[in-house]
């Protein structure tokens, strides 16, 4: 299948079940809300080494937040509910509680609570107090700039992580520019997280390694510098490959984000230097969700 001069490979992305939560962080102005959001979602590109995959989902206007201040909504994904709880507590405790002027609220409701202020309140050393407003419990923890206001719990939901597609282009500048366009388009959607730096990953991986200690290693079939040495998937005209990894709250969110990404890149045409779009999978045996590229864009 060729769309606007760009080949869509007949393959699929393979994604996994994850657990996710959404937090709303507000602050005195958008700048500090963003600082808190960026800090708590730093070092959160992959569950393999970071424990969580997290990022800012959207910036929120004052009329979209519980306390009427500017804010950001943050999505946080982890492999298990327990790990998610641990990551939320650590990240909010170290990065939001500490950040001047912030408050932190639940960004979703479900029957599965995730402690938020429930344990962080003990920072108040007995001077913390709670308020129940509209059926929800909030903690007021005295801190040096006033009070850190934090909802008792947030909620978690089952989610989908690891949707992806690969952009194969003539060179790195071309691949990067195309991916940046796709990231910008996808990030306009809610419920979606692109966890890698700037939404783009260069170190796509395969399962396993020659080294026993490693579970995953470089995706040699897509490394241009290994062409001619390994069973490469790259033709002679491809100089660089970049990957966009997509986590979403539902399968439909990942599917829609993938579609937007593919369409955005295809719209750029062959002049952009993009030659082909592929996707990463493990033969369909590991992940419970499959996203067939041709089906999605067809």
């Amino acid at each position, binding site marked *: 299948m060729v769309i606007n001069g760009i080949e869509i490979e007949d393959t699929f992305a393979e994604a996994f079940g994850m657990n996710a939560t959404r937090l709303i962080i507000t602050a005195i102005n958008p700048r500090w809300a963003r600082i808190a959001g960026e800090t708590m979602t730093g070092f959160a590109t992959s569950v393999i080494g970071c424990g969580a995959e997290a990022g800012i989902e959207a910036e929120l206007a004052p009329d979209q937040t*519980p*306390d*009427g*201040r500017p804010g950001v909504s943050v999505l946080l994904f982890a492999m298990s509910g327990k790990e998610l709880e641990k990551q939320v507590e650590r990240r909010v405790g170290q990065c939001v509680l500490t950040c001047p002027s912030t*408050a932190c609220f639940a960004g979703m409701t479900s029957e599965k609570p995730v402690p938020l202020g429930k344990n962080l309140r003990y920072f108040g050393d007995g*001077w913390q*107090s*709670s*308020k*129940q*407003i*509209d059926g929800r419990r*909030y903690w*007021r923890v005295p801190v040096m700039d*006033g*009070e850190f*206001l934090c909802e008792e719990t947030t909620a978690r939901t089952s989610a989908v992580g690891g949707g992806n597609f690969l952009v194969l282009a003539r060179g790195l500048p071309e691949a990067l520019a195309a991916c940046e366009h796709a990231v910008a388009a996808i990030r306009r959607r809610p419920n979606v997280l692109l966890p890698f730096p700037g939404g783009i990953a260069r170190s796509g991986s395969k399962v396993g390694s020659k080294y026993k200690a490693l579970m995953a290693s470089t995706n040699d079939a897509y490394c241009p510098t290994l062409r001619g040495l390994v069973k490469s998937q790259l033709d002679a005209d491809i100089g660089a490959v970049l990957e966009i990894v997509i986590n979403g709250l539902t399968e439909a969110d990942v599917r829609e984000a993938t579609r937007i990404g593919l369409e955005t890149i295809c719209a750029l045409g062959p002049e952009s230097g993009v030659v082909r779009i592929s996707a990463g999978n493990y033969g369909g045996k590991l992940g419970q969700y499959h996203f067939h590229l041709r089906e999605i864009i067809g």
Partner: protein
Amino acid sequence: MTALTLQLLAPPSPRIDLSAFTPDGLAGQSADEVRRLPLWVGNQQVETGDLFRVTGDDTDAILIRSDSDRLDGIGTGMTRGSIRVEGRAGAYLGRRQRGGAIAVTGDAGPFAGSGMSGGTIRIGGDAGDFLGAAIAGERRGMRGGRIEVLGNAGDRVGDHQRRGQILINGNAGDYCGSRMVAGTILVLGRTGINTGLAMRRGTLLLTAEPNLPPTFNDNGTQQLAFLALLTRDLATAGGPFEQLKSRGTRVRRWLGDLGYGGQGEVLVWG
């Protein structure tokens, strides 16, 4: 379906206990059956139909028409539905209420909302003493839900209150929030003497300088983020409580009662 209506025929001289007449208590009963329910008048048992004209059939929406202040315990323990009182209510209105809505167009007697844990009570006129307070022998007053008073309230508002919101559009009497354990009391008018005496925790939110016991310390002017959440929530109460958001989150704050831990707060909007 029309609201099950009890119209008081003549003002009784003894107090009448109406605690059984809730949507839960009358569920599935017809007007005829309600008419035959026993009621005590002093030491005599009569049928409800002797005191009230009973019409209608919707027991989830009960309407009581009465100008007497002697109908006690209206809405006791109710968990759902609504009770509307056109006129006045006696003592113990919404006692131990757990859900649903009670509205009184006129005044209510003492101990309204005592022991309530959920639902709403809206009093169009004045409320008596011990609004949302504990009755003698009980350790806790109001434990949840919301009471709105459009007029004034008597003394000891929220005595031993544990949780929930009491909103008063007019003035509150003496000892407002005394022995409070937690929860929120809002008074848009003035408060009497010894406001907050012996309170442990909880919030008294006022618009006029209070007359505090000497065991309260000035905490200065503070910007409190939770007030934004509170005023946004109160906007759902409507009426005089709807526009409080414009008052902002900056308040003068006193902490006390220092004889009881000092974690209570009295906040005054400037």
